[in-house]
């Protein structure tokens, strides 16, 4: 029987309210106990000064295979995930063809298991062809292994479709992940609508394009009793609406992208196409509201919003560049640097948002160090300062505005099912 003891780390498990320096035992790929003192182990990992946490889960990862393998394959995404400390990712289709058939779900699963990096959970389309008109075959997709339904970056504009989807997915106990954006208010937009966009002459993406849609989505969710998760929220208005809805007991949850905390819309003055993001970088007041929402649990999850795009797609005018940045390998470092170190939130809150809560939203048995679960464990060095380097990216794309910046805090060991899949050896 293979036994690994992770010694003297600060073990944080929000699912059991654990936060203390202790040992964690792994046996045969499963968690075998906290606070264990034992000899006779095959392997000892010294985690002094480090955090030992349930494997991080990224609920918002854009998948580009099939169709856009030049940006990212399933293999490369899963590999990048490990380097970022993620043991599981929710793979949201930004593919061609879209993941709206059992075959596509099966293909995704097979590519992931062949790659054998982290756990990859397929998220299938809500609508057939991701066209936002007719429901996809949600029952068949569910049977094929889809754990949630989403049209990804494309918001479900048709309110009747959203209503039907939220009612229908109830039968299978699966959530709908929808990114709230009223596109009529933000089309052609490049950046947050504010004084900076006014000066730069860049087309605006107003905050109300998000919160108006969030309000609509939440009311439909409330009316149906369905399970709705709002992907990538970013505005104070959304946070307010969400907070009130949660007080009423609506079955809604929400996530935010890690990059949102790192920069404000002022950064757009450099016209960097890697900063063209959707949702866009917001102004300080919105960011502060989101931090408060994270603290009081209004925002449940921090995700990477990983959106790989090959360099030639970003080497163009900012109006023509696609949205998005790679995020898997920098999300934890950004959160540590911009949320934990300045004292906005503590590590247990972060681990809740990047693991335990994400598992709850997705309905998967992860995000915990309870006895007997798969030993998905991330070891984090919160003091490690490192420089984001293009050459180190495991993602096929390197469209990150953070290349060259220093971050403090990173995953130093990523363990999936008891097996070390990534170890950070540099520095």
């Amino acid at each position, binding site marked *: 029987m293979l036994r690994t003891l992770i010694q003297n780390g600060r073990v944080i498990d929000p699912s059991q309210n654990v936060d203390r320096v202790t040992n964690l035992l792994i046996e045969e790929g499963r968690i075998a106990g906290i606070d264990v003192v034992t000899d006779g182990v095959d392997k000892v990992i010294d985690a002094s000064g480090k955090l030992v946490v349930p494997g991080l889960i990224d609920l918002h990862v854009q998948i580009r295979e099939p169709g856009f393998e030049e940006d990212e394959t399933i293999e490369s995404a899963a590999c990048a995930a490990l380097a970022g400390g993620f043991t599981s990712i929710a793979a949201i289709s930004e593919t061609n063809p879209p993941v709206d058939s059992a075959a596509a779900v099966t293909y995704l699963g097979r590519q992931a298991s062949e790659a054998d990096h982290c756990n990859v959970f397929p998220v299938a389309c809500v609508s057939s062809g991701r066209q936002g008109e007719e429901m996809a075959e949600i029952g068949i997709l569910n049977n094929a292994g889809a754990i949630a339904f989403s049209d990804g970056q494309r918001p479900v504009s048709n309110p009747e479709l959203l209503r039907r989807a939220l009612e229908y997915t109830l039968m299978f106990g699966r959530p709908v992940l929808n990114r709230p954006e009223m596109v009529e208010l933000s*089309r*052609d937009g490049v950046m947050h609508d*504010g*004084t900076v966009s*006014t*000066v*730069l*002459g*860049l087309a605006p993406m107003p905050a109300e394009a998000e919160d108006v849609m969030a309000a609509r989505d939440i009311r439909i969710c409330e009316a149906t009793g369905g399970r709705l998760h709002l992907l990538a929220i970013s505005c104070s208005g959304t946070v307010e609406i969400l907070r009130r809805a949660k007080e009423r007991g609506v079955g809604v949850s929400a996530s935010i992208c890690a990059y949102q905390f790192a920069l404000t819309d002022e950064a757009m003055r*450099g*016209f960097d*196409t890697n900063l063209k993001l959707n949702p866009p970088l917001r102004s300080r007041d919105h960011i502060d509201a989101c931090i408060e929402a994270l603290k009081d649990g209004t925002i449940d999850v921090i995700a990477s919003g990983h959106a790989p795009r090959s360099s*030639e797609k970003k*080497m*163009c*005018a*900012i*109006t*023509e560049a696609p949205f998005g940045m790679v995020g898997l390998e920098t999300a934890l470092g950004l959160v540590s640097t911009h949320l934990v170190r300045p004292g906005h939130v503590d590590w247990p809150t972060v681990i809740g948002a990047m693991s335990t809560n994400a598992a709850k939203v997705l309905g998967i048995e992860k995000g915990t160090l309870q006895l007997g679960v798969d030993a998905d464990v991330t070891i984090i060095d919160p003091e490690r300062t490192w420089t984001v380097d293009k050459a180190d990216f495991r993602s096929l794309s390197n469209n990150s505005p953070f290349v060259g910046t220093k971050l403090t805090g990173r995953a130093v060991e990523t363990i999936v099912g008891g097996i070390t899949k990534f170890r950070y050896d540099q520095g």
Partner: protein
Amino acid sequence: METPGFLEPFKGRWTKRHLLDLESLTSDEITLLLDVAQAFKESTNDCRKKLSILTGRTSVNLFFEDSTRTRTSFSLAARRLGADVIEFSASSSSLSKGETLLDTAKTIQSMCIDTLVCRHKAPGTPQMLAENLDCAVINAGDGPHEHPTQGLLDILTIRQHRGDLAGKTVAMVGDIAHSRTARSNIWGLQKLGAHVIVCGPSTLVSRRWEEYGVEVSHDLDAILERCDVLNLLRIQFERQYTRPFPSVREYALLYAMDRKRMEKAKPDILIMAPGPINRGVEITPEVADGEHSVILHQVNNGLAVRMAAMWLLNEGRAPE
């Protein structure tokens, strides 16, 4: 290269590599550009005389948007200085074959280019090229962001007719939201001490400009009698999904400069327009062609300003 006597006092005072915007320039830098432009005008018979101070230098016009006057003006400016000029249009370029913007610019640069004049519909494109190329880059208009030489020629025109800008009230009227001319004017005029008003329908004139010290008005008649200069911007019909005002008729009623409004204005008001003008929309023909109009002076000053910019970025620049 021998520097002509009239440029001697200005040589080596300019330090920047590019001319991308007026927002980042100091008032001294703006004044220097205006002074050099004025010197060109006065010493070369309104820029008619051909010089050879940039002989052996090459300038490229890389225009991704249609342009008649700006392109012609830059070409002529380069030629009057003795430089060679290459014309490059998006339609005739390999961009239509899928080459990236940056690759196109790098290819052009490797033909030993000294100055690249760029117009593009996207804000920031000239800046992106400047960051990636070794030659001097002049922004000839990047979407609604800036058009620094247009701002300079407008300011030069005011200075010629009304002297020092300090304390003058200049109103930009019309589509501020989509106007690069407005933005370059705002920064340039403010730095030289003028009071700037932006005026037009509330859908095209953001209150946010107040945060930058600009007066915002939606009522032309209310501000008219305080204005020393009116710069009437063209309404850009092509850029919007839902029209920002109900009809051209209504716009003209509220904002067109016509004979009746001229009667309410200061007797020495200066009427400007960056063109191309929509006669009957933002300006009536009798005002456009009237005695207060300096629209054609603006065009001539454009040549002087562009000669000044090209000389300062090349021979006139301080050694590194």
